[in-house]
């Protein structure tokens, strides 16, 4: 890789050479070391005596539940917060990180979940922004292209320098961010949940890049909820719990169970407990909803593209029905169509035996259907509003008399759900944007429980949520089911579906390829049905058992 470095007079590749050399010479002193760092906010001790150390050529995993202090730690490293006590040292020299710009000068780059790229500019414009080559005023486009290509090649990335960022996949955008960080001579790259929006192959290529960074002598901090990935890619793992430093273990000597124990302080054996009631429930089927031949066409690119076709299934009272499928199988589109958020082409929906017309979310809500959408921030919450307003939004009529919101009634109901779902917030007038992911999700779920639904559609209800909150949401779903609410659950994590669902409907490219009952569903059978491409085979198989 080193051989690629330019020897021309380009400013930027020269720096690259210097940077790589620097990286490789000092692997002894930790690149970044935080010792006994504490930070408190009024009423909250966010961090207490936390230690963290990254050496060059190392990938450090940083794990902890939401609220464990990971984001505070990151904000300290990016210069948003200053520490109350403790030291931060870079290359052995203690530093005070003043602001994000200073952090960058010190060689710390953070790649956030929400990427910081300019979507309408090209890859090279994004990477070189502020340092465009060429004479003053004008940008030398050819030189830009060369410099960008050099850095992309160096990292083994395949995106074109002239590609417009908006048209890239999330994975590619992430790679552009990494390239940008590297081109700014970052020594420590911190990645916050980089894999949460990636497919499996994309995760693999991201890991490839991380290894590349590592072999160049950089320090990488990988923050993730996915413990398998942490165990797979990291050299060491630092665990935080409730703002405290729990420990630092080499990956070689640990396993998932130990990490979970460290994170939650208890074992999660109870995480997926077998549900005995479900057997009793399915013994007395009571049809709540039936979907017959539902089809939808058209997406943003192509109005004629089949999104899903001829989907039929039934939903029993108190049942948790899973929808399994790979990305693009049409699961999200299916629940959105049932909910009336998207227009359907054909097919009918029966609720308790009566055909119903659902043309808008309003109709769906009136019929007792709620939707916990896939993207919490973009679709589930109004981030500029407080917990209170978000929670009561779908059921505001119940608190309204003569057009006026009766705030006392509303507050009582909201407080009730805050207690019942143990939502951790300083108060109901706190903006939801300040809550952790798990608590945000509980606010969305509360919103729907307030309308007292018969059917709750949950699209990836545990995405981007820490293990503790996940287990609470699983418990909640089971409680809902046993209280007679029917749940349709979409999840990309097969183990979650297998553990939670009474039945699982498998979709491939918009068609139902099989329905598996509890007991039949295993990782293998799910994967099998979710990758069946030839629909002729499906029919044969369906006949066989």
């Amino acid at each position, binding site marked *: 890789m080193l051989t690629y470095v330019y020897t021309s007079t380009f400013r930027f590749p020269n720096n690259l050479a210097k940077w790589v050399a620097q990286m490789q010479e000092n692997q002894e002193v930790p690149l970044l070391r935080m010792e006994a760092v504490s930070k408190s*906010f*009024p*009423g*909250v001790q*966010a961090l207490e005596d936390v230690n963290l150390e990254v050496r060059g050529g190392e990938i450090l995993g940083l794990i902890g539940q939401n609220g464990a202090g990971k984001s505070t730690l990151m904000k300290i490293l990016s210069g*948003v917060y200053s520490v109350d006590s403790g030291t931060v040292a870079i290359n052995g020299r203690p530093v005070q990180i003043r602001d994000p710009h200073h952090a960058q000068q010190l060689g710390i780059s953070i790649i956030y979940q929400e990427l910081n790229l300019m979507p309408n500019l090209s890859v090279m414009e994004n990477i070189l922004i502020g340092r465009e080559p060429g004479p003053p005023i004008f940008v030398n486009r050819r030189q830009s292209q060369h410099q960008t290509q050099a850095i992309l090649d160096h990292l083994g990335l395949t995106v074109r320098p002239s590609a417009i960022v908006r048209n890239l996949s999330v994975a590619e955008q992430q790679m552009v961010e990494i390239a940008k960080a590297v081109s700014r001579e970052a020594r420590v790259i911190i990645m916050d949940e980089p894999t949460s929006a990636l497919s499996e192959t994309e995760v693999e290529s991201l890991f490839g890049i991380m290894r590349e960074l590592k072999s160049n002598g950089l320090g990488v901090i990988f923050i993730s909820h996915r413990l398998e990935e942490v165990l797979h890619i990291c050299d060491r793992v630092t665990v935080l719990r409730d703002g405290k430093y729990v420990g630092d273990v080499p990956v070689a000597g640990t396993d998932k169970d130990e990490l979970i124990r460290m994170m939650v302080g208890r074992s999660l054996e109870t995480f997926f407990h077998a549900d005995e009631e479900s057997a009793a429930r399915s013994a007395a089927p009571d049809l709540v909803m039936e979907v017959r031949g539902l089809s939808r066409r058209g997406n943003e690119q192509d109005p004629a593209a089949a999104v899903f076709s001829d989907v039929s299934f039934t939903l029993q009272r108190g049942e948790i029905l899973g929808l399994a499928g790979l990305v693009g199988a049409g699961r999200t589109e299916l629940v959105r169509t049932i*909910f009336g*958020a998207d227009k359907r082409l054909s097919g009918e929906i029966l609720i308790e035996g009566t055909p119903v017309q659902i043309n*808008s*979310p*309003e109709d*769906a*809500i*009136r019929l007792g259907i709620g*939707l916990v*959408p896939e993207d919490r921030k*973009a*679709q*589930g*919450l*109004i*981030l*500029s*509003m*407080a917990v209170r*307003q978000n929670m009561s*939004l*779908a059921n*505001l*009529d119940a608190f*309204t008399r003569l*057009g*006026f*919101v009766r*705030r006392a009634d509303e507050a009582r109901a909201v407080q009730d759900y805050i207690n019942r779902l143990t939502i951790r917030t*300083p*108060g109901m*007038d*706190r*903006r939801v944007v*300040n809550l952790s992911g798990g608590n945000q999700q509980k606010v969305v779920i509360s*919103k729907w429980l307030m309308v007292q639904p018969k059917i709750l559609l949950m699209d990836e209800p545990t995405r981007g949520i820490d293990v503790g909150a996940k287990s609470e949401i699983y418990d909640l779903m089971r409680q809902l089911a046993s209280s007679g609410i029917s749940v349709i659950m979409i999840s990309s994590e097969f183990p979650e579906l297998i553990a939670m669902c009474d039945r699982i409907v498998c979709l491939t490219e918009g068609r139902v390829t099989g329905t598996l009952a509890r007991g039949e569903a295993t990782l293998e059978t799910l994967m099998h049905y979710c990758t069946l491409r030839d629909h002729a085979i499906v029919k044969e198989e369906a006949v066989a058992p």
Partner: protein
Amino acid sequence: MTNESATSSATVAQPKRDWVAFIGQFGALIVLIIICIIFWRLEPAFASQRNIFNVLRQVSIFGVLAVGMTFVILTGGIDLSVGSLLAFAGLVAASVEKGGRGLLTVGAAGEAEGFGVPAAILAAIAVGVLGGLLQGLGVSKLKVPPFIVTLGGMSAFRGAALLWSGGQPISAFRDQYKVLGQGFVGPVPIPVIIFALVALIGAIALRYTRYGRHIYAIGGNPEAARLSGLNTAGLLTSVYVISGFCCGLSGFLLSSRLNSAEQVAGIGYELTVIAGVVIGGTSLFGGEGTIFGTVVGILLIGVLSTA
């Protein structure tokens, strides 16, 4: 509502962000107070009752428009047509008062028997509401960006005003027509009272009603609002109707105050009004802002322009 959430989060964590929120909320008010103090020190007559009500009367037309504009901007939209719609509504009010369609059908000024002042006010408001409704439907049903729809409206209503009036002003009204724009209740000019009432109703609607809650929700995140069962198309249409209502009302007020309705009335008002709303802390992206802020923003502009 936004008030409360901003202040509650000011007490916990994230000091930097809440300073920004605080400035957004009260920055304009602080500037207004400082400027008033400076003017008062420089010219003691600034603080006289007469001058204060004079300033208030001058901003009251902008103020009424700004209340409607706040609703529109809270949804993330914009209404560029207010100046034109105001002119058109003012002309319609004037010709109803005069008892004829336009200048051409009215005889010598002040002679004809009109349909009365209440009919004139209603006609102006009807014109405003209909104009707003058309634009609202364009935004919500045809899904044309508000900027484009109301830019079109700006030209169209100005054109309508020209056709209606033939380019000639309609003026010299009876006293009962002029009283609402020129009269006083005690020391308080009547337009100021109307502005205060409109602002009060707007503030209550936004702060305490379900409708207001829905407006903030739609501005904060239209997709989440729709998925929560809100009638987003209806709500979007309604804010343009409200803005249109305010245009109608202020169109009448302006003609009453100037004793003349003209095709060229209200040119450039949209910019003053939008500036006032934005200075008052309402986000152009929607979802955040208050009528209180808007009133402060408009006052600030008023004080600066009279100084």
